[in-house]
């Protein structure tokens, strides 16, 4: 993985000093909260319902055991012993003290981490496929390009005061695990007819109160033009994006109002003016960064894994974990192990210091010290020898991290909701907890692949638009209320769910999900997943069951 050189180090350390001075000025009363606000936001520090919240970037979701231990230490030393992994490959601390936040940033800088641009109307943490560098069928490791984008976007002088926040996701696989089509810019690595590797560029996707699936504005972008094209899109957006209404300020609205054709024309025109500038990437720099992402020294294995197979045959729990939490790896004899940090009844995404330390130890022992965090708020050990999986499973069990529910009903995406967030209309965590308590793991496994996503308000941090079942908390005359929508997806077949009808109370919504699942189980054909079944049948049978009418 990428290691900072002297320049990267110097920038992050300067940034810590700068923020320390800003915090000192605030505490001394030299600047008002109003003046401090834009400064703290540029370092990921929010003022929440009860306290400050610090959002730390985990660039493209990759971290090593040393960094994970630092995150654990920060949670223990500066917070209440836990952190919260977000849907954008960040970690949030919910209880830091303002005067200690510069110290936290200094601790992070020691392990090449930061909170730069994790909030504010700027280019945010660039996200990627959590299986990057390990996935079968990957064209190229997308993290090389994420890192190039990270550096280019860091303290960008022109794009730090955009109309609105700006999120970029890049994947190197056809199977989209990074939800690239619901980002401001999504890039998919592909080959052109000549076999050259480049990017499909998708613009204007997004969730929030006006959800859109992004549109392809360039079928193929050569690698060397990666930065000039990004700069062209951002420059057009910075000038054209609406400043009069923050709810219409995202690039998805700009694209929609300008029209794809005209928007594309403007981008191409701008790009033609700058593509041969100093933004053109020299091959030696791409090679330098790519060298950091060389695969670890995999041993040469036959694909057979006798120890793993024997354990699976004898131990149904291990077999279930293998089936649901373990994915195919590009190197034979290796596997990708997902760690569910969503045990039954706990808030999705919350991880204790002890769990973080345990996962760091396991990364050292089983996965070349490497970990990933996912946009579905789980953790991944990307490179595990198959025959080591039983030993890993035992350690996970010991640490309470062996829940075999990845991709299942209880693998819920859920925002912090009204329990923490100043914007929320309703609580989302308790709904997730009720749902996960209601279904046994056996029942969830019977239901199979199912993505439930819950947001506590229309800002959609819980991605409810792209949940197979999406639940949205709303305020109805001062009461918490929940709308249910069906049919969304964040995959390569991205789709937005549709609301099925009038909303429900918190108690009712759990039963509604139950009725929806019963309908599916009755109507599914053979191996049909929930989303496939929904696509075949449409809303009607589900609505009929829920409301008693079609």
């Amino acid at each position, binding site marked *: 993985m990428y290691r900072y050189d002297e320049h990267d180090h110097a920038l992050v350390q300067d940034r810590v000093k700068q923020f320390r001075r800003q915090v000192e000025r605030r505490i001394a009363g030299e600047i008002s909260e109003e003046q401090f606000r834009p400064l703290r936001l540029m370092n990921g520090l929010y003022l929440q319902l009860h306290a400050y919240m610090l959002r730390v970037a985990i660039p493209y979701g990759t971290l090593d055991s040393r960094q994970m231990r630092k995150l654990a230490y920060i949670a223990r030393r500066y917070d209440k012993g836990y952190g919260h992994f977000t849907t954008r490959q960040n970690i949030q601390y919910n209880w830091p003290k303002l005067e200690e936040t510069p110290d936290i940033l200094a601790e992070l800088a020691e392990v090449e981490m930061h909170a730069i641009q994790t909030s504010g109307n700027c280019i945010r943490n660039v996200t990627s496929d959590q299986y990057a560098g390990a996935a079968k069928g990957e064209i190229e490791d997308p993290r090389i390009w994420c890192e190039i984008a990270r550096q*280019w976007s860091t*303290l*960008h002088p*022109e794009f730090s005061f955009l109309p609105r926040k700006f999120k970029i996701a890049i994947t190197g696989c056809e199977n989209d695990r990074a939800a690239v089509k619901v980002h401001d810019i999504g890039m998919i690595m592909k080959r052109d007819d000549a076999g050259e590797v480049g990017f499909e560029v998708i613009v204007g996707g997004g969730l929030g109160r006006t959800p859109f699936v992004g549109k392809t504005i360039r079928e193929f972008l050569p690698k060397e033009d990666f930065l000039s094209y990004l700069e062209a899109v951002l*420059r057009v957006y*910075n000038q054209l994006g609406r400043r009069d209404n923050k709810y219409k300020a995202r690039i998805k609205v700009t694209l929609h109002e300008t029209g794809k054709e005209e928007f594309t024309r403007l981008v191409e025109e701008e790009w033609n003016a700058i593509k041969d500038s100093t933004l053109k990437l020299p091959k030696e720099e791409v090679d330098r960064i790519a060298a950091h992402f060389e695969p670890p020294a995999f041993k040469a294995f036959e694909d057979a894994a006798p120890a793993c197979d024997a354990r699976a045959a004898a131990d149904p729990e291990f077999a279930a974990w293998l089936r649901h939490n373990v994915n195919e790896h590009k190197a034979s004899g290796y596997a990708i192990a997902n760690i569910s940090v969503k045990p039954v009844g706990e808030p999705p995404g919350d991880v204790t210091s002890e769990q973080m330390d345990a996962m760091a130890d396991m990364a050292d022992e089983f996965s070349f010290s490497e970990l990933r965090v996912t946009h579905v708020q789980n953790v991944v050990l990307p490179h595990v020898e198959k025959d080591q999986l039983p030993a890993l499973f035992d350690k996970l069990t010991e640490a309470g991290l062996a829940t075999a529910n990845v991709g299942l009903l209880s693998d819920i995406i859920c925002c912090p909701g009204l329990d923490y967030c100043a914007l929320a209309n309703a609580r989302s965590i308790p709904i997730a907890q009720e749902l996960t308590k209601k279904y046994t793991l056996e029942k969830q496994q019977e239901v199979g692949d199912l993505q439930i996503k819950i947001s506590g308000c229309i800002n959609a941090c819980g991605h409810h638009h792209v949940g197979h079942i999406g639940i949205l908390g709303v305020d109805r005359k001062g009461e918490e209320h929940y709308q249910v929508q069906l049919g969304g997806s964040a995959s390569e077949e991205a789709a937005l769910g549709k609301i099925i009808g009038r909303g429900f109370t918190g108690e009712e919504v759990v039963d509604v999900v139950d009725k929806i699942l019963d309908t599916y189980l009755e109507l599914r054909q053979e191996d049909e997943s929930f989303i496939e079944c929904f696509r075949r049948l449409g809303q009607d049978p589900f609505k009929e069951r829920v409301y008693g009418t079609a």
Partner: protein
Amino acid sequence: MALLENRDDGATEIEDRFTLVGDEDALPESGGVIVSLSRFEAEKGALIAREGDLGVWLDSDESPSTIEGDLGSLAVVACNFPAFSDGRGFSYARLLRERYGFKGEVRAIGEVMLEQVPFMIRSGFNTFALRDMKSLEEVKAVCDEVRVVYQPTGDGQATALQRRLGR
């Protein structure tokens, strides 16, 4: 209000040799003036013929492309920031310098936040009308806070990449 100029040895307070003339106001007999884009468009001939240097100020929804052909007659282009969060002026400054090759003064006016000055310099501004400046030392300190830059812009500062490649 202080007018600052970015020089090789840092920010310096300078005297403003331009008068910002409102759309209804009479032009002064002599000396530099800055007028709005609409007044410039309405009275272009007379303004260019007039004694004294001429400048135009652009509001944040007025692209510099509208005056591209007139830049040779202008000594200063000012970009207004109606709110610190309205960052269109950063793109305008880069276009003026890097696309249109404008060599005159590019001035930031309006709600200019001290912490934005380093970004403004990188984008091509060379003067700043700072509303509440405490001291020049503070401005200089803010400008020197972050020593590394990643993005190539027209300011010619060596980027991290250029340093890596020894260029």
